[in-house]
């Protein structure tokens, strides 16, 4: 299995009068087709680490290689390009654009990438949404959907440009248990059926118990990084 993300001594310090260390000296390797949960108490820096891995934030020190490229050498536009093509995001709140239909929301990253024709884009977006059980909702606006449905739209959007890695920040954090289960199943299928790598920040221990690999953070430091036997899934 090839390495997708390679982090070495990542540290993120918020510059302030009293500097706050969000992430402290984290090193980790992420390979293809892994389902990773980042856990830890509130304020342990798990989201901050995810933003660093997702190139939304730059580390204060340390190096981060994505698909072999050293990200510290890239400017903001190149990072945006890498985000667009290699990474997909799902946040705790769906973060869909409220004025656009579900279909348009999913098309958005494809339109930015500009590789497909208009009809190919809507075909692909519709396909992704149908796979996630949203066939009848393509033309609805996000506020006409339930929380679980919106989160599934967000997953479809994350997959729009077929990235290798999907990063999820508390993807089930604002959902009821039934919807959580659905979303979790979808994320798991991304790994098992589509061969993606999913890194999810979660404080839901039930979910954390069912992934391939758990990284536990305390005060911005990795205190444990354990692989769970496949049988447990």
């Amino acid at each position: 299995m090839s390495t997708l993300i390679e982090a070495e001594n990542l540290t993120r310090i918020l510059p302030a009068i009293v500097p706050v260390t969000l992430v402290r000296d984290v090193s980790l390797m992420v390979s293809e087709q892994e389902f990773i949960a980042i856990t830890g108490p509130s304020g342990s820096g798990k989201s901050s680490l995810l933003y660093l891995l997702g190139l939304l934030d730059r580390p204060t020190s340390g190096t981060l290689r994505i698909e072999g490229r050293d990200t510290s050498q890239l400017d903001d536009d190149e990072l945006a390009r890498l985000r667009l093509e290699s990474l997909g995001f799902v946040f705790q709140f769906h973060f869909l654009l409220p004025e656009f239909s579900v279909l348009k929301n999913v098309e958005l990253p494809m339109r930015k990438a500009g590789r497909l024709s208009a009809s190919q884009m809507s075909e692909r977006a519709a396909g992704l949404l149908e796979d996630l059980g949203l066939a009848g909702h393509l033309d609805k606006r996000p506020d006409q959907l339930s929380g679980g449905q919106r989160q599934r739209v967000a997953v479809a959007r994350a997959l729009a440009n077929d990235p290798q890695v999907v990063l999820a920040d508390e993807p089930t954090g604002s959902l009821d248990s039934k919807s959580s289960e659905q979303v979790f199943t979808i994320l798991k299928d991304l790994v098992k059926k589509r061969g993606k790598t999913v890194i999810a920040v979660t404080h839901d221990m039930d979910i954390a118990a069912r992934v391939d690999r758990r990284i536990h953070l305390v005060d911005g430091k990795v205190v444990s990084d354990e692989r769970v036997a496949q049988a447990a899934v």
Partner: protein
Amino acid sequence: MRVILELALTHIAGRGRQTLVAILGVALGVGFSIAMAALMQGTEKDFIAQLVDTMPHVQISDERRTPRRQPAEDLFPAARFEGLRPKEDRRGILNPAAAVASLRSWIPGRMAQSLRTQGVIRYAGRDVGVSVIGIEPEIEAQVSSVAGDFVEGSFDSLRAGGNNIVLGDTLANRLGASVGTTVQLVSPTGQSRGFKIVGLFHTGNNARDEGETYVLLKNAQILSERPNAINDIRLRLDNPEAAPRVARQIEAELGYKAVPWQEANESLLEALVVRNVVMYTVVGAILLVAGFGIYNIISTITHEKARDIAILKSLGFTQGNMRSLFLIEGLALGLGGSIVGWLIGFLLCFTLSQIEFKISGAAVGREITNLPLYWTPWHYAIASAFALVSSGVAGYLPARQAARLNPVDIIRGAT
């Protein structure tokens, strides 16, 4: 990029009322500045047209701009004369026939020569000082605007045998005289003749209606005891704008002072420049205020759409994309405002041009006037260019801020 355009239009459309207010702000600015510019330039052109119409375009008199050079100065480079008393010279323009003939050969327009002198009209025990202008009626009619202002008679009436005079109606009223009355005209040299009034004119200019009289050139020369003299040549050019150039050439040729209408009305024209500065300042201020309206709405949108910015950036849209997104929103408001503004400006101009008003007062030639409006596409272009630039700037400032937003800050704030 089409996605950005679509996002921008969606943002704007999503805020119906505010968008309408911002567009109206720009539109009113554009509309009023178009109407104001049309009115200001219209009145200016009308004013200059009247000025050019009533005045000779170039007036040549028997004066010189600098004292005549003394022969000794020509002979000896070291010689200087200052404060010499000018020689008594009442001959007027030297050799007028030759001067007129040489001018006639190249002047692009018409010309009339005359003798201008002072006199006193004496009638019914009243003395009124007037300027007496000796003219040749058929030539004068081509050059002078007075020819079109006759209430009774005309310049040609002067020819009808005997000593005849034409004067302004206000003057006639003051004297209590009318057409057919014979008045005494006394010249500075003491000559006194009876002149019969054969015509009255009304120019609308009080100074002229009260103080100008016309007689035949010959009569004026006799009155002032200056046979064959001419001291005033007036030109009416085909192109009034050429006056300064023609005047310079005449001065070089004849040596006499030739005053173009622009020089004669320098202070008035300067006042027009000041007026224009005032106008453009006011118009600029209106559009600037409209610009602030745009700034306000765009910066509200960027604040409200901070989440969208974070989402789009996390999806892989660049800072440049975000900048152009909000810049386009500003420009779209500016463009929308410009187009509505053109309509408002056009309607305002149309309405203003329909207004008729009466100017009260006896001393006015035309009784009913319309506002003079000057129509040019330039006003429309300049107003909307200014609106677009100010809305571009108004959009750019918040756009730059939006582009710099760190998505992590917003996502953190939301979770």
